[in-house]
C-alpha cells in the first residue's frame, strides 16, 4: 500500500510557519508581561492562557465567528487576499498558532522573569536603548530556555486537531493535517495508514521534546 505523506508534510509546514509567528510575537508579548507595569496585565496573561484550557471546539467556534466569511476579520482577509481564509491551509496555521502560542508565552515569560536584572540595568547605565538591551543582553541570556519554549510550541502545533478541523476542515491534499488524516484513516478502516502516521508523528514529537529538554537548564 502506498502511503500518502502529504498530511505529514503539510503538518510540518503549518507548524513551522505558526511557530515562526508565535516565536516573534510571543517573545515580544512575554517581554512586555515580564518587564512592564500596566493595568490589566494579569488579565491579559489570563486571556492569553485561555486557549490552554478551553475545549478546541469552543476555540474553533470563536475563530469561525471572527474569521468566517461573515466575520469582521474574515471579510478583511478576503478583501486583502481575494479569497476566504476558512478551509485553506492558512487557516490551519491560525489553528496551530492558537494551539501553541499560549504555551510559548507562558514559558518565555517565566524565562524572562528569571533574568538577573543587574545585567539589563548595567546595559542601561551604559546608554543602551531599551531595544538594544533586549536584543543584545536579555535575549542572549535567555537563549536556551526560549529555544526550548519554541521547540515545545513547534511540537504542540503539530498536534492540533479540534481547531484545525473546525477552521480548515478535512480536505485531502489541501487542508488535511496529520492529526486529521489519522482520524480519517481510522474512520475509513485504513489501519496501515493510521498506524504509520501515528508512529511517525510520535517519533517526531519525542525527538523534539528530547531536544527541548536538552536546552532547558537543569540543576545538577
Amino acid at each position: 500500500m502506498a502511503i500518502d505523506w502529504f498530511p505529514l508534510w503539510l503538518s510540518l509546514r503549518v507548524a513551522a510557519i505558526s511557530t515562526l509567528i508565535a516565536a516573534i510575537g510571543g517573545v515580544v508579548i512575554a517581554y512586555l508581561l515580564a518587564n512592564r507595569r500596566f493595568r490589566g496585565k494579569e488579565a491579559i496573561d489570563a486571556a492569553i492562557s485561555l486557549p490552554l484550557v478551553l475545549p478546541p471546539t469552543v476555540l474553533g467556534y470563536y475563530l469561525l465567528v471572527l474569521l468566517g466569511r461573515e466575520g469582521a476579520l474574515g471579510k478583511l482577509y478576503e478583501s486583502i487576499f481575494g479569497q476566504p481564509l476558512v478551509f485553506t491551509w492558512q487557516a490551519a496555521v491560525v489553528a496551530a498558532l492558537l494551539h501553541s502560542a499560549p504555551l510559548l508565552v507562558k514559558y518565555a515569560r517565566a524565562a524572562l522573569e528569571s533574568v538577573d536584572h543587574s545585567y539589563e540595568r548595567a546595559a542601561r547605565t551604559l546608554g543602551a536603548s531599551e531595544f538594544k538591551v533586549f536584543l543584545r543582553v536579555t535575549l542572549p541570556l535567555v537563549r536556551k530556555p526560549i529555544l526550548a519554549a519554541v521547540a515545545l510550541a513547534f511540537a504542540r502545533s503539530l498536534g492540533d486537531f479540534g481547531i484545525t478541523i473546525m477552521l480548515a476542515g478535512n480536505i485531502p491534499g489541501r487542508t488535511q493535517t496529520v492529526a486529521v488524516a489519522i482520524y480519517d484513516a481510522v474512520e475509513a478502516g485504513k489501519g496501515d495508514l493510521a498506524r504509520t502516521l501515528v508512529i511517525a508523528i510520535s517519533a517526531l514529537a519525542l525527538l523534539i521534546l528530547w531536544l527541548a529538554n536538552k536546552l532547558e537548564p537543569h540543576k545538577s
Partner: protein
Amino acid sequence: MIQARLRKFLSAGPDSAAFTLDIDLQTSAGVTVLFGPSGAGKTLTLDCIAGFNKPAEGRIAIDDTVLFDAAAAINFTPQDRRCGYVFQNYALFPHMTLRQNLQFAAERLPRLERHRRVGEIMDRFQLNEVAGRKPHELSGGQKQRTSIARALLAAPRILLLDEPSIGLDIPLKAELYAAIRQVRADFGTPVLLVTHDLNECFELAEHMVVMCNGTIAQSGPPLKILDQPSTAEVAALLGAYNLLPVEIRTLDPGNKTSRVRFQEWDLAGPYLPGRFRGDRVTLYIRPDQLTATARDTKATSNAIPATLLRATELPNSVRLEFTNGLRVETPRGEFSKSSNNKDWTIHFPPEAIRVL
C-alpha cells in the same frame, strides 16, 4: 557636586517591613562613602540616583544637571543620567568576552575613537592579556577592574559602587581600593560607594555619610565621626565603643574640667559644654583609648577596678572583656606580662572622655 534630596516610601511586602527613605545628601568630595547597616537604605539611594527607582519627592542633581525633580516632573532615564554603576556581582555580560563588554560601553563614542579608547582603558587597568576571555574565565580582581573600566568608558558623571568589596579576601580588597584611587587620579570622576565595612570608609572616604533606618544620622570626615559620633546609634554602628551611663557631678569651665560618676567611682574629664550638674548622660570611649594594668595596692586616680572575663587575640592587639562589660584593647606585649592575672585596673585618660 552631588545633591540628592529623596523621599520614598516602600510599603510592607511579604518578607520586608514598611520602609521610608528620607535623606538630603550633599557632597563635593572625590570619594563619598555611604556607611550603614543592612537595610539602612544605602543601595536604594544609589538606585534612585542611577534612575532604577523613582523617589516620591525630591531632587537629584550632579553639578549643574538636574537628573530628577519631582516638583518640575523631570525624570531622566538611566540611559540619559550617565551614572556609572558597579554592581555587587559586577554584571559583566556573560555571553560576551571582556573586550566585547568594553566595546558595548563604547558604542556611544564616535566610531574612530572607540577602538582607541577601549585599548587605552585596557592598558590602564591591565586587562590586555585576558581581553578575549569570557567573564567566567576571569579572576575576581580582573572582573572587578573590567566592571569599573566598562563603567568609565561611557564617560559617567559619577561612579556608583554597590558594596563592591563584599565577599572579597584581603588582597582583592587592596586591589579594589587601588583601582578606585586610580579612578580618582586618572579620570577625576567623583565616586559614591556603599559599604558596611568601617575599615573601607577609612581606606577610601574623603566624606563619610552614616545612614540608619532610611535617614542620614551623621556626615563628615571619617576621623571626625569616629571621634565624635552624634548619637548613641552612630556610636554603636561604628562598633566597639564602651558606653557607660554616668551622672555629671561637677563642671568647672574655668579649669575646663568636669567630674562624672560611674557606679561608685569618680572620673575626671574635660569640660562638657551645654550640660548641667546632675545630668545623666552616656560616656563613650573606644577600647583602644583605655589602658588596663594588673591591679596593685597603689590608689590611682581616674581608674576603676575590674575582673577579667575573657581575653581574645586580635591581629594587632588583645581584646580584654571585663565582668562589668568594659572592653579594652591593649598591645599584646603589655598583656602577656600579666596574662594570668584576674584583677585589673582600667585607666580612663581624662582627655578621651566624651559624652552623648
